[in-house]
């Protein structure tokens, strides 16, 4: 080995030694002062989760996942679309439960037309709740992306538009 390679190898070794002792010193202090987290419990949780994932991924265990549309624990069955009927509190018409939300949206004038008039900005939502909002309070300095939300309606556009395309225009 040339002397340069030897030298750099030595420096590297010294740096590595220094780092190792740093970590050892830190851990030593943590252990002596009783500050270490309960690693056993944490590892047990990790193990249980890993086991569970394996079991769930096994196709022969799919029984529970498919039981949704059969019977619940009270012995009841339900249709895919809720068929309870009640009166709309806005217009008084009789509506089926499973179609209540889309009806109410139109009924309250919150259909597509109404939506376009209102300015939409996610920051407005957050700022309104500025005292308690998770985004505005601790991201004045951070570069993280803004609100994180998941829609469960169908959306016709990308980005922050959450248009619900499931019901028809009147």
């Amino acid at each position, binding site marked *: 080995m040339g002397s340069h390679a030897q030298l750099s190898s030595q420096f590297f070794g010294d740096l590595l030694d220094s780092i190792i002792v740093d970590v050892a010193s830190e851990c030593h202090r943590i252990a002596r002062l009783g500050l270490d987290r309960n690693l056993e419990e944490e590892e047990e949780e990790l193990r249980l989760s890993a086991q569970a994932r394996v079991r769930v991924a096994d196709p022969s265990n799919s029984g529970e996942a498919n039981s949704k549309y059969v019977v619940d624990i009270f012995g009841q069955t339900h249709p895919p*679309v809720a068929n309870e009927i009640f009166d709309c509190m806005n217009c008084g018409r009789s509506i089926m439960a499973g179609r209540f939300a889309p009806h109410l*949206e139109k009924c309250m004038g919150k259909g597509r037309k109404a939506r376009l008039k209102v300015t939409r900005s996610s920051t407005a939502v957050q700022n309104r709740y500025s005292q308690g909002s998770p985004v505005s309070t601790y991201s004045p300095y951070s570069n993280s992306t803004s609100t994180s939300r998941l829609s469960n*309606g169908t959306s016709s556009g990308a980005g922050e538009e959450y248009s619900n395309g499931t019901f028809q225009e009147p």
Partner: protein
Amino acid sequence: MTTGNPSYTNPKPCKHLADYKLNHGLSGYKSLQKHLKTAPHGKTSVGKPSTKTPRCISCDGFQGRLYFCLICSSVSCLDHNLLHTQSEVGHDVAVDIERAELYCCVCCDQVYDPDFDKAVMSKHIMGITGDKNGDESIGKRLVKRRRLGSGVVEELVDSKISKQLISMRDRRAKSCYPLGLRGLNNLGNTCFMNSVLQALLHAPPFRNYFLSGGHNHETCRKRSVDQLCLSCDIDVVFSAAFSGDRAPYSPAQFLYSWWQHSANLASYEQKDAHEFFISVLDGIHEKEVKSRNQNRDNGDCQCIAHGVFSGLLRSDVTCMTCGFTSTTFDPCVDISLDLDTSNFPPKNTANKSIKPDANSSMSTLLGCLDLFTRQEKLGSDSKLYCQNCQERQDSAKQMSIKRLPLVLCLHIKRFEHSPVTKMSRKIDRYLQFPLSLDMTPYLSSSVVRNRFGNRIFAFESGESDISAEFEIFAAVTHAGTLESGHYVNFLRLRNQWYKCDDAWINEVDEGMVRASQCYMMFYVQKSLYQKANEDWSHLPISPRRNMFGQ
């Protein structure tokens, strides 16, 4: 010396350290103070201004660890520090120059002394101009610490519950199942609402409040002209859920009320469970504020939403040049976490990776919390003004939890929106989460202490007595894509897990919950969880409830 969480074990000194203290007291520490060098990021080392490079007195070496004798200030390397103690009797205790740690040359081990740590910390504090009291500076938005604390809410609801407890045999069929377990009809893409409602229905302090008549319709109507009251509507849902009737309930009235409330918000159409959750708490709070003409002081707010869910976050911004730290406190009703990707394997307090094998690439909740409380260096394009340096400097920010709520809602940011491509996507990555969660490492006292190398020192004075141990009781999961997906809630009642998929309630085993993809997790303080599990067996349906229920 330290109060509240966490407690130190004050380690017993070795014989040599004890002797040293006896003979020299604190004089060695005090004279060492002048030589201590404090770095802005919290670490301490020993610097000797006189010589350029410290060298071992025995071998003149300068490589490896060097130790500075507390008595005579001579420097020895690791190989020769024992020699020093042999030639000079009593010179047993030295200081590691790199890390400012005490080292006993005879025991060949690192040793600890609270007085030494105090001397180190004093140097840190002295080094920052303007701080004489030893308290870190607090920003202008400091919220007054709640004098009553959450204990009041707890007491209030517990005494009412116990008065109402009657052992009553439920003659209805299906009575062996926990009360309050009832499906919610999907009213048309409203699973986002149903999943959160289920969590609220079973959040112990929240539930106790409503079931014990905490929100009175009569007084509510009298107090305000405005008929709209989300709490009244929630109360109706509670009555329905706990009425004993097991046929799925349609929360139509609630949806109507919520839409009227959120019509004031720009995005009334939010179909996101987390946004819904925030909006409901906001609605409850607003009504409370209006009816009592209070200031919007969320830190001290006594409304049930804040009483149960509100915690306090601490944000420290440190100047990387001088170490001056600016601290602000902000209340929060939940914590939104970024997923820790495989770039950051979960670390324990010593910054060591746990299990560097198959699990190291898995995201874990603890990993996300570590990420949340990690000191984050802000880029050079976002320099912040430092009061001490009087100019903009590179800074680092660190979050921690000053006060934990009774019910902790953890939200995982699974939605990614790129402002560049204008594309949004859902992050489907699996997240491991524990059923029992200890939040101690994320408290301000732990985080700040860790920043300074875990010195034995009273970093946080007067932290509340709320325990940091939590148990999960509800998990909201999301399956599917951004555009079309489905929310399901898993509830943990009396140590049995139930899957609440809109109208369908089924028993499931713990494994299924662990393997699911969580979006929001609801943890409650362990003591409240245990209490809820005991009392429930004979919690009854009070006849009065049926007046409001269906």
